[in-house]
């Protein structure tokens, strides 16, 4: 089952496209990092997936073909918007009461147990909780709905390092316990590097890279060698990005596994996720859409 599936998905606000021609097939059971610079279209994609906004072009379905915004989708998806919006003047207990009455699925025992574990007092006003506690409360409300898909838009941006760690630990514990699929967005990849096993890179409204992290890392190599020979290599291999410094050139290339021998005179080494993402961001024309998504759209093509 795919938790998010999109084909030719686009969203236009007035004259500009916030998201254009996005094709995705994200399988269930992953922790998905949705990364990209500010304004790349991350929030737009998430809003389309949870049914907060309707597409201008193309289509999107969630959880195996369900249309976003329908009751079936709403019951199974929990969405925490940016900065965890909560009613500041309500008490924590009132917030639970309100959310319980607004949802068909609700696990009160679980919500109260989580808050007790986090030592968040039920009688305290939401506005008087710390930033980390507010984020944890929003997460508690989301998880008490027992979702199949949890969508978090920039969940870490306003948290201090300790609160970030605790928040992500809570999310990962929910993944281990319930097997919930998670999509998190951030403009800082480092925040998500250790939790995500699936990456979607958005850039200027387009999906540039999508796939399982292990596959992406295995499918790319960094070659180091003489700059004057870089052109020859680029003719034979799919080069994503070239970085020249004097006589030395570094080429990020797509490869079919580590078994592929490096061209003679070139040294081959594995790439890290951050390195890979930066290389693609510097080359807006390059794309890597391996795996199931490849059949939804033709690769936008690496200059070969």
């Amino acid at each position, binding site marked *: 089952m795919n938790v998010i599936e999109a084909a030719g998905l686009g969203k236009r606000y007035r004259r500009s496209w916030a998201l254009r021609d996005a094709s995705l097939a994200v399988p269930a059971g992953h*922790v998905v990092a949705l990364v990209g610079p500010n304004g790349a279209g991350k929030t737009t994609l998430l809003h389309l997936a949870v049914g907060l906004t309707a597409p201008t072009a193309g289509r999107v379905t969630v959880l195996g073909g369900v249309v976003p915004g329908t009751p079936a989708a709403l019951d199974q998806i929990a969405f925490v918007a940016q900065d965890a919006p909560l009613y500041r003047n309500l008490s924590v207990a009132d917030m639970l009461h309100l959310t319980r009455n607004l949802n068909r699925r609700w696990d009160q025992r679980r919500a109260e147990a989580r808050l007790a574990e986090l030592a968040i007092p039920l009688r305290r006003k939401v506005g008087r909780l710390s930033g980390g506690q507010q984020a944890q409360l929003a997460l508690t409300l989301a998880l008490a709905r027992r979702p199949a898909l949890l969508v978090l838009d920039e969940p870490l941006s306003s948290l201090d390092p300790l609160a970030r*760690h*605790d928040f*992500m*630990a*809570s999310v*990962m*514990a929910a*993944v*281990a*316990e319930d097997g919930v699929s998670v999509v998190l967005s951030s403009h800082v990849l480092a925040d998500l590097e*250790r*939790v*995500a*096993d699936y990456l979607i890179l958005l850039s200027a409204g387009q999906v540039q890279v999508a796939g399982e992290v292990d596959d992406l890392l295995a499918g790319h190599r960094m070659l180091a060698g003489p700059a004057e020979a870089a052109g020859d290599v680029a003719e034979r291999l799919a080069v994503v990005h070239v970085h020249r410094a004097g006589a030395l050139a570094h080429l990020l290339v797509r490869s079919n596994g580590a078994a592929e021998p490096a061209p003679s005179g070139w040294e081959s080494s594995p790439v890290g996720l951050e390195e890979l993402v930066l290389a693609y961001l510097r080359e807006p024309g390059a794309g890597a859409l391996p795996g199931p998504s490849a059949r939804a759209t033709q690769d936008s093509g690496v200059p070969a």
Partner: protein
Amino acid sequence: MTIDKQIGSARGPGERGQDAAIAFRLDHASGVPTYLQLVQQVEHALRLGYLGQGDRLPTVKEVVSSLAINPNTVLKAYRELEHRGLAAGRPGQGTFVRGAPATAGLAELTTLRKSLLAWLRSADAAGLDEAGMVALFTSALRDFHDRRGEAPGPVPRGDAGPGTAAEGAEGVA
């Protein structure tokens, strides 16, 4: 030790088997993949006698709750430990330490470590530097192997410090 006593009395006798026998930590700057760090920490603890047969490793949930990493990473580490024959999963109960790399008990190790330290001190007094000690140890280890009629194992690298030479002999691979 007093610390052991406190833990023992707080949890009560007989409950010790319930607790995980190791707590993992991560070095984000090491460049070693996260799952491999977990594997290495278990191996290391086994080799030094902190972990033994039948000890329970933390559950996946316990690990992700403390380290904030993807559960699949922990599963991958535990699969690797099973593959290496060091741990085995028991359905519904958790993952337990199975075999251990042949090693002495904690008390023997402490004694051996002391005599090794004494040897290092005398080598130092004789004017050997660290690289010289490692070279001497390595060559002695090779002699030892030859005399027992075995092929020499992987040899510790020259850059290993004297303190790690002993485990380096097994740990390099």
